[in-house]
């Protein structure tokens, strides 16, 4: 179980770094959403199911949506 947590945390850190170094903004946003999703899993494993639900809905869903809307309204309009 501990190894599973550690792997998830490692994956979260890698997604975080990836979100910062990707060139295309869409990829960065998806990576950032990935970080939130893994965090939601971690919350579940930390016995915080309510926080996990909030994080999955707000962090993964809503934030990513806001980012995508911003991207669409700005530089992403062309492509």
């Amino acid at each position, binding site marked *: 179980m501990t190894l599973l947590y550690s792997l998830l945390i490692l994956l*979260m*850190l890698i997604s975080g770094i990836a979100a910062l170094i990707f060139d295309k903004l869409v990829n*960065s946003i998806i990576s950032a959403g990935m*970080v939130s999703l893994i965090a939601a899993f971690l*919350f579940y494993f930390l016995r915080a199911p309510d926080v996990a639900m909030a994080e999955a809905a707000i962090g993964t869903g809503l934030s990513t949506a806001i*980012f995508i809307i911003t991207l669409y309204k700005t*530089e992403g309009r062309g492509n």
Partner: protein
Amino acid sequence: MIDFLEKWSFFGGSVLLILIGLYGVITRKNLIKIFIGLSLMDTGINVLLVSLGYVEGGIAPIITSTINNNSYNFVDPIPQALVLTSIVIGVAVLALGLGVIIKIYEKYNTLDISEIRGLRW
């Protein structure tokens, strides 16, 4: 090795995530990237807070019909309540910031902070 991971993986991982986010905020030039960095910092601090309240072998602090024995070992519910508040505050600030970013794009037609007068620091 396992002991070390068990003790430090959550603390170390969340602090590292905060530092990664901070690094991104300081070094990236694109405003959307900067706000991605901020949201990484938020996620990191949330994981850190919840892991501070974790009790080894505890159960979720929810009263159900099957489990109502007080001697049960609950994890600490207060950090979880704090994190719920902090998630909501975080997304509110994020939405406000991204709204301002859209306005800035309409004015300058770019999101690169090195090209925006009054944002270079």
